[in-house]
């Protein structure tokens, strides 16, 4: 057996028990490596449970900067007897196992083709701490100490991070550092040479930040001027509203009161109702939910579309249908959001690739909803939303003004501006609107979901209905020019095949493209960032013999939208579908594309999966 040897390029997986306090130590592990200038991408793999069930935290260390999930494990930190067998079986030959050796394992449970590192964590804790909670908690920081010795992680980097975490809480700080050093001392005594996996200081992180998508969405809503948030708890979206609350407490609470209103509603129907009411009345409002919530909201979404009321809906997608895989990731709500509601409806959707875009697109969504007077979906997923991701710093231009869209002021009404609430005054399909209470005698209208004429008068006349629907179609074309444009990535050499992808697939796609190119397979890529699609998407499809559409759902929902919107021959669009609830990997994409293009398989990473 040859132990795996790798520098700045491996995967560590922590197997923990939910609720055991491991999350903070695991995050410290990832951040310490970042502080050494080496990119990491961690992923939480957790069950729908609060305490007791297994959870995993998987950290990919990649100096090359690949942030997608790699698959496979090189070092397993096994802290959960429940999942021992399956976890250990997952290790490749030559892999490493770190485990709590306080109690002897039954004979025959250890493989002999892996490197086994036993540390009596429970025993050391029992010797040093009296309090049962401390005995439990400090095990976590202690294994971090062990890992720092094994992998060559800078102690100072960890000490600084712990110092930042416990600033002003000196007692806790000291206690944590004590536990860290207990782990280090044990490792130095027993494994002084470390292991074949090593972290070496590099300069590959730069200015990037490390953040969860849900927090970034929330901050984007604060920057974008959302004042009303109505929501109903659902994984994986709840932390959007919770982070919004936290940021509002920091930035929006003044002596004179709060410049925000957050309502935890009785259900998603009420949440979207409040958002629609606030949007109708001129406040920027959003809700955050996941698939089942969107299903409940659909009647209101149709009303907002028809009555033309701004509303921003964050959908942090999870596995469906129904409760589906509530703690796993998918991109499977595209169709249910694109055409949410009865009747002929179509909705704007934005697809951020990472927290940086979550922040930017949240603010953009508020602008677009006001400009287009319609619901706008911000489509993220669990993989982006609930994992910290290394990404470009958040950016804001202080010169930016909120685009409140076509709203007539009291002065404009007083000056006698013609006002037809549903009149296409400018030819772009977007009518003018007024907010309640603006002018004593001009600008009032009655909002309803029923058909109306351009002056908002009730009408069941066919021609009035058709006028309205045709105007909405014009508005849709206007929207295609306003939403974030797709991002092309041309192959180094002329390519006959192309690939379309979006959202959280982005890092795996980048890695896959590099691996394919290295093997001589060149593909042009286009990352979609919004629906409706601009014409350039059609040009991209028409410019290639074959276009792969890579997505994380079973039905090829983006592919259906492309076929539906452009009427292209479905045979040109080859689906590449990953939908087991884990984040897509570069390996998966490479395998799928090479299988179709008929070339011999290429590997983005040395094969280490058993």
């Amino acid at each position, binding site marked *: 057996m040859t132990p795996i040897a790798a520098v700045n390029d491996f995967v560590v997986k922590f197997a923990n028990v939910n609720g055991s306090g491991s999350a903070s130590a695991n995050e410290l592990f990832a951040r310490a490596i970042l502080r050494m200038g080496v990119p990491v991408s961690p992923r939480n793999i957790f069950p729908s449970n609060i305490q007791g069930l297994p959870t995993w935290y998987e950290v990919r260390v990649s100096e090359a900067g690949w942030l997608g999930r790699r698959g496979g494990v090189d070092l397993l930190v096994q802290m959960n007897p429940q999942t021992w067998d399956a976890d250990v079986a997952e290790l490749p030959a030559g892999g490493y196992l770190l485990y709590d050796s306080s109690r002897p394992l039954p004979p025959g449970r250890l493989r002999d083709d892996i490197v086994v590192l036993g540390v009596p964590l429970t025993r050391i804790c029992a010797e040093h701490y009296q309090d049962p909670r401390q005995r439990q908690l400090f095990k976590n920081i202690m294994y971090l100490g062990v890992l720092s010795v094994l992998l060559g992680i800078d102690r100072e980097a960890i000490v600084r991070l712990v110092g930042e975490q416990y600033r002003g809480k000196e007692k806790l700080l000291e206690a944590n550092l004590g536990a860290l050093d207990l782990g280090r001392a044990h490792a130095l005594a027993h494994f002084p040479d470390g292991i074949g996996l090593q972290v070496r200081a590099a300069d590959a992180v730069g200015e990037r930040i490390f953040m969860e998508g849900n927090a970034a969405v929330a901050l984007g809503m604060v920057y974008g001027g959302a004042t009303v948030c109505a929501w109903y708890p659902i994984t994986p979206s709840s932390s959007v509203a919770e982070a919004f609350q936290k940021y509002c407490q920091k930035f929006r609470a003044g002596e004179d009161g709060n*410049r925000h209103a957050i309502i935890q509603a009785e259900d998603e129907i*009420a949440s979207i*109702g409040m958002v629609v009411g606030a949007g109708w009345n001129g406040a920027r409002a959003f809700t955050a939910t996941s698939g089942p919530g969107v299903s409940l909201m659909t009647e209101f979404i149709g009303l907002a579309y028809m009555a033309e009321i701004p509303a921003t809906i964050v959908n942090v997608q999870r596995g469906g249908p129904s409760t589906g895989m509530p703690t796993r990731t998918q991109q499977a709500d595209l169709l249910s959001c694109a055409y949410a509601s009865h009747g002929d409806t179509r909705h704007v959707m934005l697809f951020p690739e990472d927290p940086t875009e979550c922040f930017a697109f949240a603010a953009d969504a508020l602008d677009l909803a006001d400009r287009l007077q319609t619901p706008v979906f911000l489509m993220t997923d669990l993989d982006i939303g609930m994992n910290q991701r290394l990404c470009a710093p958040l950016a804001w231009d202080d010169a930016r003004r909120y685009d409140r869209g076509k709203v007539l002021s009291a002065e404009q009404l007083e000056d006698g501006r013609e006002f037809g609430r549903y009149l296409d005054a400018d030819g772009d399909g977007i009518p003018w609107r007024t907010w309640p209470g603006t002018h004593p005698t001009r600008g009032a209208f009655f*909002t309803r979901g029923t058909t109306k004429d351009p002056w908002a008068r009730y009408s069941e006349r066919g021609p009035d209905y058709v006028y309205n629907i045709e105007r909405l179609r014009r508005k849709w074309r206007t929207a295609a020019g306003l939403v974030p444009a797709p991002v092309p990535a041309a192959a180094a050499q002329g390519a006959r095949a192309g690939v379309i992808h979006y959202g959280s697939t982005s890092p795996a796609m980048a890695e896959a493209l590099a691996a394919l190119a290295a093997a001589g397979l060149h593909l042009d890529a286009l990352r979609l960032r919004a629906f409706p699609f601009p014409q350039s998407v059609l040009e991209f499809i028409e410019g290639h013999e074959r276009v792969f559409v890579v997505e994380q759902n079973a039905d090829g929902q983006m592919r259906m939208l492309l076929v539906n919107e452009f009427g292209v021959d479905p045979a040109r669009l080859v689906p590449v579908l990953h939908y087991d609830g884990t984040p897509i990997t570069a390996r998966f994409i490479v395998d799928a594309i090479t299988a179709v293009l008929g070339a011999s398989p290429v590997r983005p990473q040395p094969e280490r999966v058993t």
Partner: protein
Amino acid sequence: MTWIAKPRLHHPSLSRNAVGYTRRDYEGKVSTLCAGCGHDSISAAIIQACWELDIEPHRVAKLSGIGCSSKTPDYFLGNSHGFNTVHGRMPSVLTGANLANRGLTYLGVSGDGDSASIGMGQFVHAIRRGVDMAYIVENNGVYGLTKGQFSATADQGSVSKRGVANSDAPIDLVGLALQLGATYVARGFSGDKAQLVPLIKGALGHRGVAILDVISPCVAFNNHAGSTKSYDYVREHNDAVNRLDVIEGRAAIAVDYDPGEAIDVVQHDGSVLRLRKLDPDYDPTDRLAAMAYVNLHQARGEVVTGLLHVDPAATDLHGHLGTVATPLNQLGAAELCPGAAALAKINAALR
């Protein structure tokens, strides 16, 4: 069809209120409801109440659900913004609207199907939150717009036009509102405008959630013998606990009653609700007593009407949330956006 709006010629006798409007200025489109429908009388009472209260029409936002009752906001206050939302969900839309601009007066109009069936959840939660609104349920015991099915407020044993008896127990919206802590709870009858107009005025002036259940007979589907929501039935069984006068703050408040004969309740806007007792034992500021009274008298088959409960110390959702006095929809980037410098700090903390 009944016509509320008359030809738009201003009759010289139409006098102007303190803000310079005539009653006509509070009217809306021509009603399309059945002639004699109770809902039209309620619209007329709303017009009268707003005119008497000197509210500028455009400073009212009127919202409704779906139903004949919910259509009515189109038939009054033509210079107000209105919103005919979706079935049973007016309370959430109104809540959001109210959060966006606390400076307007909010009037929610609903039906018994709209509020007691599909919208029960939203009715309940709007009350829990204390949304500042006048919430009028135009209660006819049936779904008028879908042609006469029983609603959840229909009394057990009451008989439909086709002769079928209702076997389900009724939901009493007044009882629920009292139990949930609504700070203004009243019941009126569309056939008694003199009683109804002050109840609406009090509700509009109340800060906090004001629930007004108005029995409003459906002449098309529920006004026959055997119905407990018909004009005749309600007239025969009406037990009015008090007569309300709303005295506006600026008017000199003269005491013109004997002690024990009436109660004065001062609302947050300075107006005084003067309640002349018809039942000497009734004290509407005592919520628990009100609940007991209403339950007892309803068990005897009476329709208890009047201002059943008012809490002079009422608070509302904005108070609970601690929002700024400026309406949220008036705040711009200067007040809302933390700016690039703050973002640089956030970025630094995320490395």
